[in-house]
């Protein structure tokens, strides 16, 4: 592990917010599993909680942290350190610490109560969602110098992916209900990492039977190992692309 990442991780772990985040996640997870009598129901409840809180905390905390690191970045830039290395270290530092707190808060209870395929997949999905939203935070904080604007963009993006996107999809579904758009819907989900994550888990929880015809089409695609592979690949792209754009911008930025 390089030395800059070490400094960043130590600095974040000293931060009380990450500690509180870990504790809240762990209270949620342990209580959900001990309230429900079977672990599948527990996972389902937990899924909804995770898909709302994890992206929000990841994106907002990371954006604020990046803005607050501007002095740190400036200090390092006058030293013989490659620009992209500073940005990468910041990304790894943030991702590692948030992944760690997700693992401690949610991962351990999942492994304890539901050490099944779905449990493991849920853990993976949680890791991916965390990383995707850290990556989105990097993009939103490089877009503007204004901290308030940057955090605003981050929250808007979260709101869009967590709530608005589903509304739009529902609207589309109703408007175009006369047409056979079920197959297209599979493609549309690729544009929202949260939906992608949700569908991946739901289809492995055997509740997809309640989702009607669209559910069957989804099951046909995401139920296969090829579908799972594609879904994770798309999540991976969601990590790479926003960060890559921000890296290009950071390399040309004047400080």
């Amino acid at each position, binding site marked *: 592990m390089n030395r800059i990442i070490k400094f960043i991780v130590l600095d974040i772990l000293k931060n009380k917010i990450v500690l509180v985040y870990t504790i809240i996640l762990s209270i949620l997870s342990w209580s959900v599993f001990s309230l429900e009598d079977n672990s599948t129901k527990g996972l389902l409840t937990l899924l909804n909680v995770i898909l709302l809180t994890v992206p929000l905390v990841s994106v907002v905390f990371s954006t604020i942290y990046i803005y607050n690191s501007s002095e740190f970045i400036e*200090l390092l830039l006058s030293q013989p350190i490659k620009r992209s290395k500073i940005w990468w270290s910041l990304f790894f530092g943030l991702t590692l610490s948030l992944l760690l707190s997700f693992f401690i808060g949610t991962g351990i209870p999942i492994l304890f109560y539901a050490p099944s395929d779905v449990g493991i997949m849920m853990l993976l999905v949680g890791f991916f969602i965390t990383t995707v939203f850290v990556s989105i935070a990097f993009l939103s904080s490089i877009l503007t110098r204004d901290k308030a604007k940057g955090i605003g963009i981050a929250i808007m993006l979260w709101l869009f992916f967590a709530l608005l996107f589903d509304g739009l999809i529902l609207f589309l579904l109703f408007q175009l209900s006369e047409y056979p758009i079920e197959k297209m819907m599979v493609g549309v989900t690729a544009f929202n990492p949260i939906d992608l994550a949700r569908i991946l888990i739901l289809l492995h929880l055997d509740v997809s039977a309640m989702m009607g015809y669209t559910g069957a089409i989804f099951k046909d695609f995401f139920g296969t190992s090829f579908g799972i592979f594609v879904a994770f690949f798309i999540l991976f792209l969601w990590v790479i692309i926003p960060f890559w754009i921000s890296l290009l911008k950071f390399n040309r930025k004047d400080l």
Partner: protein
Amino acid sequence: MIEINNISKSFGKLKVLNNVNLSCKKGECIALIGPNGCGKTTLIKSILGMVIPTEGTIKFKEEYISKNYEYRQHIGYMPQIGRYPDNMTIGQILEMIKEIRRSDVQLDEDLLHQFKLKDLFNKRMSTLSGGTTQKVSATLAFLFNPDVLILDEPTAGLDPLASEILKEKIISEKQKGKLILITSHLLSELDDLITQIIFMQEGVVQFHKTIEDLKSSTGEEKISKAIANILKGRNNE
């Protein structure tokens, strides 16, 4: 040592640097002067790679600096306003930079001792006064014994005692044959330090002269008067 070729930089519509050409060699002590907002800091930051010029190239020790970063180990930079992570202490900042660079050069801790920073090691950066922050910046700039020192308004905000210490230090480094680049508004302070003057105005280098040249061409003994003389001459034209 530093070759600047046709550098231009615009921030939006504002042209901050306009076709700047400069060449600085070893052993020189150069004052970069000019009114506020004439592009001094932008020029310095371009040399450090913190600002990326719109046009032109910069060479450091015969190598282009774009896409390069290792050359910065030969530069000690003291910013005009040092900004440091708020929640770190002076000690932690110094330790961190030392650890990240992990360089094997003999550390130069003269300023650390003379400014008595050791007593303040546990103070957080956010609680420091402007002057103390400047002391930390100066210490960091000289710490790794760099070949080139770039000091942006080094004495602004320092008390007379500290600024005298810093001046002594600059003179002793100059005698070791290092290249020193200073920006300052206090011309009287520079009298016994510098060998050359670069005067900038609105992003353009007006002249780059040695002190002897300047003094003989204007017939003045003091740098400040010589500069004033030149400016008056220009205004009359």
